[in-house]
């Protein structure tokens, strides 16, 4: 085992840091509030273009799609640095992490040609149309329907919590083509298609983040169906496993903790309970870090990480919670905007146990697949 980065990895990380330092504007910490604000999303388009030119947007993609087939470690180092900086890629991180790779695996030639290179150039924003008002954790119960009509589908229904929907160009949409888990299909739907209405949902995580999206007789040609009819469940199984440790949340949590401790030290307040709490939170961040690295190590060796991904994810939820609580207790003024980056972390941290699969669902997976506990007959 070797718990250190090699020379190239260190240099790579340093080059990303330099790029970030040179590219982010001075008022970045005021832009970087919330995970998907309008201002940040607009900024991201410009930033991702520059990242792409620097070869730092999709380094782990194959060369034919604008990458250089870098290994999963480089992709993760990049993700760590981006997340730590307040995710200047905005919603485009999804293209990089899973939408692009899934299209490469399951897309038709037309779908790949249309969508992948614009992603690699940092020109396009997607949204993920999975959750519905009645289908959150129980995603397989979703009701948005796609009915075949000649060589098109007519889509009707509603999505909710859709991040980036207000500005997205394309939606990675799940809709039902027949009953049951294996009756769900994926459609790549341009967001300017007639019949789509997007509404902002005001929230504590910042303006412009989450939305309702309504589909009224939205017509989508069958050539924009990804995979076969009913193949969605199989395909998104891969998406979800990539996403479980897709965001290295421990990186920003850890930085936030260090910054908060530095503030307390300046004021002579790093004493007593604060020391115990900070140490405990730091241990939780490091536990999440090393468990996540363990999963990336497997990925780098082409070993499929199974339910361990949920263990990694839940470790991250614990560390986000401890760090958020630490800031709220010891630097409450952060929540009133006195320290914008601490607030930016807060607004990202509080969703750790909900977005991309609730924490309790991870525990269900761990219990069933990792510990192999007996299950109730269904």
């Amino acid at each position, binding site marked *: 085992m070797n718990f250190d*980065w090699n020379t190239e990895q260190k240099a790579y990380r340093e080059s990303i840091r330099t790029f970030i330092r040179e590219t982010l504007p001075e008022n970045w910490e005021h832009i970087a509030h919330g995970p998907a604000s309008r201002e940040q999303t607009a900024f991201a388009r410009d930033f991702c273009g520059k990242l792409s030119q620097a070869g730092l947007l999709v380094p782990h993609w194959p060369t034919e799609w604008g990458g250089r087939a870098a290994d999963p470690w480089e992709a993760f180092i990049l993700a760590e640095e981006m997340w730590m900086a307040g995710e200047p890629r905005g919603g485009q991180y999804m293209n990089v992490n899973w939408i692009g790779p899934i299209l490469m695996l399951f897309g038709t030639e037309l779908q790949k040609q249309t969508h992948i290179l614009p992603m690699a150039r940092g020109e396009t924003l997607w949204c993920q149309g999975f959750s519905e008002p009645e289908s959150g954790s129980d995603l397989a119960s979703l009701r948005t329907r796609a009915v075949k009509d000649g060589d098109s589908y007519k889509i009707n229904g509603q999505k909710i919590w859709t991040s980036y929907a207000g500005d997205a160009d394309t939606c990675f949409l799940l809709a039902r083509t027949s009953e049951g888990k294996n009756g769900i299909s994926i459609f790549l739907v341009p967001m300017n298609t007639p019949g789509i209405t997007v509404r902002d949902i005001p929230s504590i995580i910042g303006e412009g983040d989450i939305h309702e999206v309504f589909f009224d007789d939205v017509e989508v040609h069958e050539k924009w169906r990804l995979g076969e009819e009913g193949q969605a469940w199989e395909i998104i199984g891969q998406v979800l496993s990539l996403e479980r440790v897709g965001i290295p949340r421990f990186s920003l949590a850890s930085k936030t903790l260090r910054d908060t401790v530095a503030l307390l030290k300046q004021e002579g307040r790093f004493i007593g309970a604060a020391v115990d709490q*900070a140490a405990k939170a730091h*241990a939780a961040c490091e536990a999440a870090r090393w468990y996540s690295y363990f999963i990336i190590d497997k990925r780098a060796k082409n070993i499929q990480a199974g339910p361990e991904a949920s263990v990694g994810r*839940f470790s991250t939820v614990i560390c986000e919670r401890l760090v958020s609580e630490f800031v709220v207790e010891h630097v409450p003024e952060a929540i009133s905007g006195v320290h914008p980056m601490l607030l930016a972390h807060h607004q990202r941290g509080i969703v750790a146990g909900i977005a991309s699969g609730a924490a309790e669902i991870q525990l269900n997976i761990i219990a069933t697949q990792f*510990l192999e506990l*007996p299950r109730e007959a269904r």
Partner: protein
Amino acid sequence: MDLSLNEDQLAVEGAIEKLAEQFGSSPVDFHGFALVSDDLDRELEEGGYFDIATIPEMGALSAAVSVERLARLPYTAEVALSMLVRPHLDMELPRPFGVIEQGRPGRFVATAKTLIIIDDDKVGIAHPTADQVEAIPDSLFAYPMGRLTESLEVKYLPDDVASTVKTWMRVALAAEMAGLMQAALDSIVEHVSVRKQFGRPLGVFQALRHRLAECAVLTGGVRWLALKAAWSGDAGDAALAALHAQDSATRLVYDMHQLSGAMGMTLEMDLHLWTYRMKALMSELGGRGGQAQVVAAACFE
């Protein structure tokens, strides 16, 4: 970054696994507290396992992996200190080791040839004679506990050596805790899979499934922090690992007993062998508060 064992480390892991299998179950007629195996100690000694940390291809990491595995056994022997602390001292010290912290009873004290003495910030070494120590056969802690019967001649160590000792004690503690937690968790997973109430195995109840899943997350984290600390030998890493171990153990010990019902209170089930060893380690080196002080000094500039 490479989080797989190398070939030599895999070979040691395999050999330890084979050895461990011989000690995998407790004797049916055992209803006591400390289940000590002299055979295990002898086999480890004869196999040269107490020195693997000094062999560059294996290193302290291999020792930590071994300590974790052996801590999962119902049997105990003085393994962790000998494998992880002793090799990092520039002096020949006879094993087995024991620890006396703040004059309190400690594990393996009655049979130790070398005692690590911790008095506040000072760390010393002593070699007790048989009449200076005595066993405490009825301690609940599932290590062979012992105490001093008179004060010893202690050779206090210079600060840098003292801090090396504490660092490796923390690594040893974390590696041992990782194994104890895993063993306790495994035994309760088995228990709730078999034990039926309300017509079904306890393990189908989500309230219990989630607690077990959370314990699995904590156990995995402790193991990785212990291995990282063994690899780096860094004081901050060691304190983080020990802190996470002691903190997680409070949760594990409570939950594992809770989920085993009254059966967990008996000496028939092996559970107490792991949980009471964890309890013995919870207070070591100042407990969580002690580790937190070191983390604060070493990890936050």
